[in-house]
């Protein structure tokens, strides 16, 4: 009987271990190829603790600002907590989670995602789910993650099935066994860093062609849900003594309409927040849309991102009372390594 009592837990433990290993194997790695942005959220935890500035937002932050430049030029240690199509409620919960790991002096939020009011308004369900996964799977388990999952699903999507598959991603990726790639085995247990403090480097150049024409939205007012989460961000930062800076990153599409800009300006003024639309300072920043974008104006390449960081670093220094930390020896050592990695990555990518 005693033997039986021992065998059962042992068998159960082996089964769970095998299932866990399978889950690790079957989850997408995002280490190579097109969708490296899926790896960004999980990379933060190895770099948390010493950042004075944390950017939060979508591709307009993780592709348009280089934290390495901010360090090199101004001694500002920073990190970008961004992922593809990161929605405002996801940004809010990432901010909330960040505050459990460190207390930066400034949080920078890119306001583009204000245009998506609810999970339903962000595109087809399959697309939403894929983007949600890229943001949520990388988060460590916490109340913030659970709330972010809840906020990210539409009412129709909310089900035991979906929620449980976030807790046990094996249930979501169980059929990936038929499309496993070499990287799934290479990075089964250990991942590389694909970003430089959350910045996903692009070195290609695709000049801006014709100006973008997009349909004006029927209703130019931001939705209730967006305002709700922006307000929560404001309150969260106030409660934690963190300065919230709102920005609109320099990217030409999706178009950032004047009516939207005005609403954010008014909100910032009302709440005593800084708001800067970098599109208004393109010339000052020195963006050349024939060389500084890798996808015809949608996002900046590394040359543009360095220019944007150079300009924005100065803005931060002037407006946020941020110290130059380059004299901090311990921090300098860490950042020296980061700079070297960044330069090497740039060199490799430039080929």
């Amino acid at each position: 009987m005693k033997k039986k009592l021992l065998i059962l837990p042992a068998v159960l433990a082996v089964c769970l271990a095998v299932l866990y290993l399978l889950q690790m194997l079957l989850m997408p790695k995002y280490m190579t190829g097109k969708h490296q942005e899926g790896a960004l959220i999980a990379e933060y935890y190895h770099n948390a603790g010493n950042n004075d500035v944390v950017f939060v937002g979508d591709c307009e932050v993780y592709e348009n600002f280089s934290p390495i430049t901010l360090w090199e030029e101004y001694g500002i240690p920073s990190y970008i907590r961004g992922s593809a199509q990161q929605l405002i409620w996801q940004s809010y919960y990432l901010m909330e989670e960040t505050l459990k790991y460190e207390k930066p002096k400034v949080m920078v939020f890119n306001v583009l995602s204000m245009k998506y009011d609810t999970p339903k308004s962000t595109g087809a369900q399959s697309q939403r789910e894929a983007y949600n996964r890229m943001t949520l799977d990388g988060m460590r388990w916490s109340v913030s993650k659970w709330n972010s999952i809840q906020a990210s699903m539409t009412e129709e999507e909310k089900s035991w099935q979906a929620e449980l598959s976030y807790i046990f991603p094996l249930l979501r990726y169980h059929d990936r066994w038929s499309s496993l790639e070499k990287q799934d085995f290479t990075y089964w247990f250990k991942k590389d860093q694909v970003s430089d403090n959350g910045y996903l480097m692009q070195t290609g150049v695709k000049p801006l062609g014709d100006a973008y024409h997009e349909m004006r939205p029927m209703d130019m007012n931001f939705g209730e849900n967006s305002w709700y989460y922006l307000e929560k961000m404001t309150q969260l930062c106030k409660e934690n003594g963190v300065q919230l800076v709102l920005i609109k990153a320099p990217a030409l599409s999706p178009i950032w309409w004047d009516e939207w800009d005005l609403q954010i300006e008014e909100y910032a003024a009302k709440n005593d927040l800084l708001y800067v639309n970098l599109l208004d300072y393109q010339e000052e920043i020195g963006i050349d849309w024939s060389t500084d974008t890798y996808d015809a104006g949608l996002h900046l390449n590394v040359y543009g991102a360095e220019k944007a960081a150079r300009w924005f670093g100065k803005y931060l220094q002037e407006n946020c009372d941020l110290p130059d930390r380059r004299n901090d020896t311990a921090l300098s050592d860490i950042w020296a390594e980061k700079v070297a990695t960044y330069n090497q990555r740039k060199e490799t990518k430039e080929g």
Partner: protein
Amino acid sequence: MQFTSFGFLPFAALVLLAYWVTPKKARWITLLLASYVFYIFAGVEYLWFMLFTTATTYITTLCMDNILQKQDAFLKENKALLSREEKKAYKAATKNKTRLLMVVCLVLNFGMLAVCKGLLIDPFRTMASGSFLSFLSIGLPLGMSFYLFQSMGYVVDIHRGTAKAERNPFKLALFVSFFPQLIQGPISQFSVLAPQMYAPKDFDGKEFSFGLQRLLWGYFKKLVIADRIAAAVGTLKGFEGTGFFLLTVFYAVQLYADFTGGIDMAIGLSQSLGIKLPENFIRPYFSKNIAEYWRRWHITLGEWMKSYIFYPISVSQPMLKLSKAARTKLGNFGKRLPVYVASIATWAVTGIWHGLSPNFLLWGMLNCFVIVVSEELVPLYEKFHNRFPGLKQKKLYGGFEILRMFILMNLIRIVDLFPNVLDYFKRMGSLVTTWNVNILWDGTLLNLGLSPLDYGILGGAIALVFAVSLYQEKKGSVREMLWTKPALRYILVFALLLVTVLMGSYGIGYNASNFIYNQF
């Protein structure tokens, strides 16, 4: 809540834990609570229907029981005073009273079922919307056909005196709502199920383990086979000729894996709770004739129909009169005529039970037709086998009989999918008029919603189910065989778990189907 929803597994685990840690005498209360929680998850609005069936069943059987007890007391008291005729007359009067109560209960419940089923189809659905009946137009309450048939069987048993009425309303509520069998059966008899649910019992590790293994086997059949092949069944519905024939085979696989998978889950979970539900399938595709097929397929429904429809009709006064009259005029056929009439009624009811639409009625009549014709051809078969003695013992001939039965039942069963019966007959006609066997190799099979990998998985899974069925048919229980080989058992069970988890059709990208029999 579906058995295949992710939420069900944690729910089942909690119920198992709660059930076995509850003191023996109170375990049935845990089961009752679990059953109601399960049902509430399906939709609170459906709960009223189950409560109605429970209440009417309880009140009816209690009244019947009181009348029967009064009768017994009266007869006992007046044993010496009453003549035999007087006792008989008193009993007949009592029987009439209980019959009246039974009929009222049956009419109320089956009436509700008929209305609910009727309101699923036009023109009744349109007529009901906005009327006082609109509260019934919420779709068929989960498992209604199953719990209602089970409860009404109990009411009839009390009237017949073959079961004793349960006087505790909560215990009766458990009999009606026992959650593992709620979705698609099996339909159990009160005298078999109730004592197991209420009696205090000890934990039996072997039964518990066997139950979980069977639960897993059910998941395997449902998720790896039924839900994977469902896409191809949907596409093939538009085909004629060879494509239609292929549809009959694919649907046979889907329905078998779906229905037996669900039943395996129900029986397995119950077994882990120490409750043995009746078997509903005994490898029906190995049947050599239709009578055998129906002794192996959906057994509990067949038994129910036999007990509560077929027998009462065949021994009713009009049938006995018909039998007498027909025997003199039609000879041997006349002798069998009442049985055939009872069969037609039984199959009509069985068809309608599946759905209030012409195709299900046709399905019932086709089955009845084949049964009657087979019965009438018995002398011819005997003549044939007398001419070729020993043929029956030949394995090849046995294989032919099985294949013949499989194809025949496939052609009848497929009418399920064609609410327009003319469409069904057109497709049947296309088997001889449309010669398109080339779809088997011209790439059409790869456009049915199944990739080569899907075919590979399906092939492997079907081969496994076939091998297990063959072992069970020839040698007996696979689980018993594995019980004496623990290492092999652990490996195989874990391998089955892995295959189900990795190759099951569930989650994003799959439209996991409800169980087909939920809708009936």
